[in-house]
């Protein structure tokens, strides 16, 4: 028995062993690792196949863009891919064909063995399509726990290094790569770094001093909180946002005349300062006008999409450039919030991402109903009546309406009307003009005996017509007839003259109230020449109380207010529903080739769009809500990545502008996911909380020094084993130099300013706009306030990679060029800052101490001996030079101010020291440019050369 059972056990044992063996043999011989579509297959298809087989081109009727297309029969009648059967799939046959003429891809080297292997296994495993990571809903991801000891680096203390969850993600990755993070940067460097990042300037002295007394974690957090609370915080972050918003102070295109939209820029600064949650921040900018009872600020915010260009060039078709602006809104919205390149879809379905062409135009429909129409007045605007007399008129009108209607609602309507004076009808709405023209394609001019027709206009019992026109001669008349030239007369307008066709004045005339759709014939009579030149008109209903004796007096206030000089800022407003524009697909992207009609909608493969209650069709507000929906896979990812890029120099996904399948892969996908989730759910879209989390991490606080191992393994610092180190932005370069020298103005908001700019930079044709150097503290304002002209941006800013702001720029690519060096070496702005810094340095009579101080002011840390020697040597040379050259002293110190004069008027400035510098009274904290040099001017000149060198050090231009 015993032996039998023993035998049995042996047999069972042997059998099990055998079974195991078979399994292992099977496993090693036949098992295939599962293929991941997104990370393994898609990159090969995109790189090697899709140019001919997908989107635009479908060679041999084979497309790899969508699964249903790829598995469908091709031109040959058979599908090229048979799921589960690579051997019989034409697709595999063709990529492995021996004859290069038959083999795919044509005229290119064959796919590698690994690539072929991946594609073969993929088809054998069923040719499954995967969803691109960035299109998956954002989920909460677990935070990894890095191993408690570091292989090979036993000294490294994980517990001490990790400060927050960001660090856990980063450290886990570093452990995979067998890299050790860097220690914390020294406190002075860190204070400078975090301050340049959060407020765009070196830390304010008092904050810096408090922190440096005892630079521990609590003090650092306090510093961070204090910086986040500074009002200048908003100025720094506005610069980032304004590149996306393509904000500028001019309209663009040929004339590129001034646009007054700086109140929008100020809105952005304030929004950052008050930490407006990003969802609200978004909704107000995209659809503030559609919110219930929008505030002035919410209307101003819609200026985001009024930063599109406006073409005032003579002979341009307003509709063409209105369409261009709407297209720009579509592309900018997708670039800014969705990190998605949508522009290709304008002409054809996307070659790489699942966007269909009609979806582009469904998206276009959201923006196609806005009232702006490329007219010189940039209507619609929000109007700010700042004069007391205008306010009094408004009050008087409001009281009138209240007294005659007892309705607060009517008062609100009036208030809103006066705020916008819309909806206007523009001259280009006339479809027939006889004996007349659109003057310069802008204003309606018709001669006596001529007429202009407005077709199929929906009259809704309007009994008043408000219009603005200019006329050379009085005595003309304009009659409006219904449906034909001799049709029913609904008004006769006696033309008033102000002696010129161009000085437009408002006029309010009676109209016979009619309901229904009619053609309106405007029939002109008067002296030779144009009877008038009309800017716009507006059909409206009369004020209440027509029977009242005071009525005319009050009605007149409407025209007075229409003509009042007000501050204006362009905003978005939609046409009322019965004037709504239709949207068509543009065949091959051509705006004149209308295809099928489409309704507003969002791309199918993304989360569903919800239409608000009571709406028959989706509008911009629904779109804004859709963008900010927690189901949206893109917006939160895109935004946290943008903020990360600002701090770390590169996004977690390097291609911040492209989250599609052609974008790079994120370096830390889980961290990106975690940040995006937290931004939405934990921080409730608070941008300040997000930034705080990032800058409090040990990852951010690391020393930025590079060692050879890191340089070899990770030259671009994608793994974050060291702190960020990269050149400052154009704005930061300017602002820092002004701050360190003490010249920087802390004035906030208002019209764009004009710091010194070389003569002759603006040579824009047909434009009266002149660069007039700002006076007083406006000369020293932060870069965000510099007047931004699109066709000719401020030269030193574009040298440092700032865009022209003609269109949305999601990422500035940093360059390093000799032209940048020339700016900081020779631009009078930088000479002026050098003089001011030199003044501060010379407060100390000892030259060595002065040099130490200059460096300390710039870098917030002590100078090393070697660097000091370099500057001392320079001082010696410069001082010797200026002792020998009196006129050089004068010329250097006068240079910045002398530069303001036009070149041809500029005198050689050797007629004595007109500028005066007083070394004794110059304030340390707040400098002023010398007006007079009293004392040792040679010293000041020589120290200016030293200060100029300090302001040009790589470390000064770099966030270390």
């Amino acid at each position, binding site marked *: 028995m015993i032996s039998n059972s023993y035998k049995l056990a042996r047999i069972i044992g042997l059998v099990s062993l055998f079974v195991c063996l078979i399994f292992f043999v099977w496993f090693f011989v036949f098992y295939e690792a599962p293929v991941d579509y997104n990370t393994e297959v898609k990159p090969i298809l995109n790189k090697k196949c899709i140019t001919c087989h997908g989107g635009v081109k479908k060679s041999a009727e084979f497309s790899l863009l969508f699964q249903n297309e790829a598995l469908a029969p091709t031109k040959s009648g058979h599908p090229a891919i048979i799921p589960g059967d690579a051997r019989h799939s034409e697709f595999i046959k063709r990529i492995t064909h021996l004859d*290069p003429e038959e083999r795919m891809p044509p005229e290119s080297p064959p796919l590698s063995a690994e690539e072929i292997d991946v594609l073969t296994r993929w088809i054998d495993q069923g040719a499954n399509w995967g969803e691109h990571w960035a299109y998956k809903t954002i989920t909460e991801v677990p935070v990894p726990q890095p191993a408690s000891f570091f292989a090979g680096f036993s000294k490294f203390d994980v517990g001490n290094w990790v400060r927050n969850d960001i660090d856990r993600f980063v450290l886990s990755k570093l452990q995979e790569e067998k890299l050790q993070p860097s220690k914390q940067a020294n406190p002075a460097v860190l204070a400078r770094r975090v301050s340049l990042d959060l407020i765009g300037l070196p830390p304010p002295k008092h904050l810096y001093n408090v922190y440096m007394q005892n630079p521990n974690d609590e003090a650092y957090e306090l510093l961070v909180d204090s910086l986040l609370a500074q009002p200048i915080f908003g100025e720094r972050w506005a610069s980032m946002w304004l590149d996306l918003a393509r904000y500028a102070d001019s309209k*663009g*295109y*040929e004339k*590129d005349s001034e646009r007054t939209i700086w109140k929008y820029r100020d809105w952005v600064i304030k929004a950052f300062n008050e930490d407006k949650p990003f969802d609200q921040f978004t909704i107000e900018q995209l659809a503030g006008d559609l919110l219930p009872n929008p505030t002035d600020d919410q209307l101003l915010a819609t200026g985001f999409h009024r930063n599109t260009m406006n*073409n005032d*060039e*003579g*002979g341009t078709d307003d509709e063409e450039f209105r369409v261009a602006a709407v297209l720009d809104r579509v592309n900018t919205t997708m670039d800014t919030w969705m990190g998605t*390149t949508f522009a290709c879809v304008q002409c054809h379905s996307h070659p*790489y*991402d699942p966007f269909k062409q009609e979806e582009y135009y469904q998206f276009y429909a959201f923006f196609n109903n806005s009232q702006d129409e490329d007219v010189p007045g940039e209507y619609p605007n929000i109007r700010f009546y700042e004069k007391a007399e205008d306010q009094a008129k408004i009050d008087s009108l409001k009281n009138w309406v209240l007294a005659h209607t007892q309705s607060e609602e009517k008062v609100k309507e009036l208030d809103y009307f006066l705020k916008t004076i819309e909806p206007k009808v523009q001259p280009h709405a006339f479809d027939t003009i006889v004996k007349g*023209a*659109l003057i310069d*394609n802008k204003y309606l*001019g018709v001669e006596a005996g001529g007429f202009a027709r407005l077709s199929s206009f929906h009259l809704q019992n309007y009994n008043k017509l408000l219009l603005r026109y200019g006329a050379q001669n009085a005595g003309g008349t304009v009659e409006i007839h219904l449906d034909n030239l001799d049709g029913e007369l609904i008004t006769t307008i006696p033309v008033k003259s102000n002696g010129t066709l161009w000085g437009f004045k408002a006029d309010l005339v009676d109209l016979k109230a009619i309901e229904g759709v009619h053609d309106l014939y405007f029939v002109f009579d008067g002296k030779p020449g144009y009877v008038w030149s009309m800017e716009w008109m507006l059909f409206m209903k009369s004020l209440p109380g027509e029977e009242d004796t005071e009525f005319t007096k009050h009605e007149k206030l409407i025209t007075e207010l229409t003509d009042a000089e007000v501050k204006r800022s362009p905003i978005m407003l939609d046409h009322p529903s019965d004037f709504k524009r239709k949207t068509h697909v543009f065949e091959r992207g051509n705006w004149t080739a209308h295809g099928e009609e489409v309704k507003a909608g969002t791309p199918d493969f993304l989360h569903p769009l919800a239409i608000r209650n009571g709406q028959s069709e989706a509008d911009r507000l629904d779109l804004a809500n859709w963008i900010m929906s927690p189901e949206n896979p893109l917006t939160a990812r895109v935004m946290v990545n943008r903020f990360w890029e600002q701090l770390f120099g590169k996004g977690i996904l390097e291609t911040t*502008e*492209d989250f599609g399948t*052609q*974008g*790079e892969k994120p370096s830390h996908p889980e961290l990106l996911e975690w940040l995006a989730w937290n931004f939405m759910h934990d921080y409730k879209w608070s941008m300040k909380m997000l930034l705080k989390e990032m800058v409090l991490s040990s990852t951010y606080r690391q020393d*930025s*020094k590079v060692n*050879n191992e890191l*340089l070899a393994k990770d030259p671009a610092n994608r793994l974050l084993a060291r702190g960020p180190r990269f050149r400052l932005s154009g704005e930061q370069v300017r602002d820092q130099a002004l701050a360190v020298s003490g010249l920087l103005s802390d004035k906030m908001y208002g019209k764009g300013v004009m710091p010194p700019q070389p003569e*002759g*930079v603006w*040579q824009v044709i047909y434009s009266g706009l002149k660069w007039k150097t700002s006076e007083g503290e406006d000369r020293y304002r932060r870069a965000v306030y510099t007047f931004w002209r699109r*066709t*000719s*941006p401020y030269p030193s800013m*574009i040298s440092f*990679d700032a865009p*022209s702001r003609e*269109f949305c720029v999601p990422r500035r*690519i940093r*360059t*390093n060029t*000799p*032209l940048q060096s*020339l*700016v900081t*070496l*020779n*631009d009078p702005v930088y*000479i002026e800052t050098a003089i001011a810094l030199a003044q501060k340095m010379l407060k100390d009579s000892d030259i060595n101490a002065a040099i130490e101080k200059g460096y300390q002011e710039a870098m917030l840390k002590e100078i090393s001996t070697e660097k000091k020697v*370099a500057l001392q*040597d*320079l001082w010696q040379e*410069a001082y010797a030079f200026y002792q020998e050259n009196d006129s050089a002293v*004068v010329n*250097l*110190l006068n*240079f910045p101010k002398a530069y303001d004069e036009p*070149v041809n008027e500029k005198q050689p400035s050797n007629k004595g020291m007109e500028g005066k510098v007083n070394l004794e009274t110059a304030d340390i904290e707040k400098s002023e440019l010398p007006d007079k040099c009293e004392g040792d001017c040679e010293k000041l000149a020589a120290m200016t050369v030293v200060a100029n*060198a300090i302001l040009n*050090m*790589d*470390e000064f231009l770099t966030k*270390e």
Partner: protein
Amino acid sequence: MKNIDNILKELQYKSLEQTTRRHFLRNCTTGLGSIALGSMLGSCMGGSGDKVQSTSPQVGNALASKASHFVPKAKRVIYLHMAGSPSQLELFDYKPELAKLHGLECPPALLEGKKFAFIRGVPKMLGPIADFKQHGDSGAWISNRLPHFTQKADKVSFLKAMHTDEFNHAPAQLLMHTGTPRLGRPSIGSWVSYGLGTENENLPGFIVLCSGGNTPSAGKSVWGSGFLPTVYQGVQCRSKGDPVLYTGNPDGMNRDLRKKSIDAINRINQENYNEVNDPEILSRISQYEMAFKMQMSVPEAMDISKEPEYIHEMYGTEPGKASFANNCLLARRLAEKNVRFIQLYHWGWDSHGSGKDGSLEHGFVDRCNEVDKPMTALLTDLEQRGMLDETLVVWGGEFGRTPMQENREGKQMAFYGRDHHTEAFTIWMAGGGVKEGFTFGETDEIGYYGVKDRVHIHDLHATMLHLLGMDHESLTYHFQGRDFRLTDVAGNVVKDILA
């Protein structure tokens, strides 16, 4: 047999691949630190047309000279853009039939479905406001507006059936210079800088010279770098003030002291590099060295005062003046110094007839006088220096002008003028691999529409790149998930004009 041939070819290709530029490149870009040094610039860079472009190029060395796709005919381009668009009907496209129709109402067939910038209603036909003769052995028609240029009839290729898509200046100029009527794309000069780099590290590789008192309608975007890094944008050289912005030292600081200060800056930077080891610092050091060299080389290149008298006589130059003549001479000087792309703009060609300066009988004649002698001299000068063969010269506006007289707002105008026209205009090209004394393309009897060998702007771009040794379909830049080209999805090389 064919199969075997192919396979053999493939083997050859493979062995060649071992030594191609791209392969070379890969071996070359490993030592990041070393290539950033100024002295090493131009040693082993490349990458034009490389499909696998990084999204953040190593811009420190981005301007280093690069190999072209194939052997180029032209090493550089001088592009003379006549902003505002001169009338082809008064210069090169002689239409005796149009003269016969002068003053008659335009037939409705020409107006149907057409849109013009300013013409309204029914305009009148306008015969040529110039006298034409044939010149040279080639018998090219050139009007009496360009008496000097007639000598060059046998040197240039005329493209007479050019056409475009845009009839407003700004969009048309953008199309002409960036390949698209909207903003955001790199200019042709930027593409060329990106593709070929610069051969003179002391001067920018893409230089812009403007005359006529205004920059072009489309603003600085016509020499902008669009989505390419800003190192590739055109650098404007000016006749007044610093030739390149900020190349002049501040008053009271001489070159010697500037040298010392740059030495001090770079000593500190070197010191800092020793501490932090960031190769970007080495790049900064080389940029300061280059800036210093440019401070010398730019004013030197821009100083025409030392040119001999006969040269001034030939071009009609006056040192210190902002003129097209001076810019032509500068163009030759810059070409001598191997600047890759030299772009001239001369403004004031928009002859609508709405004012004296904008009329065919006055302002237009002045413009012709301003450009005739210098552009002729430029060709002569390049030729006598043996440089014309390797320099491509292109001349033209952004669109053409109508055979009808403009009738703005439907009214008779005070002067002769023509409206903007997309369907036909003439440009000429010379040197750099282009046929001599050749005319390509033909318009109908009144010069309204190209009827033979029409050339679109994309074709012109493809041809220019071809002459520079680049395949316009391979010169790409990866941006926002897509490879972009100057010619977008169009463009055919105009082979007929290649010498």
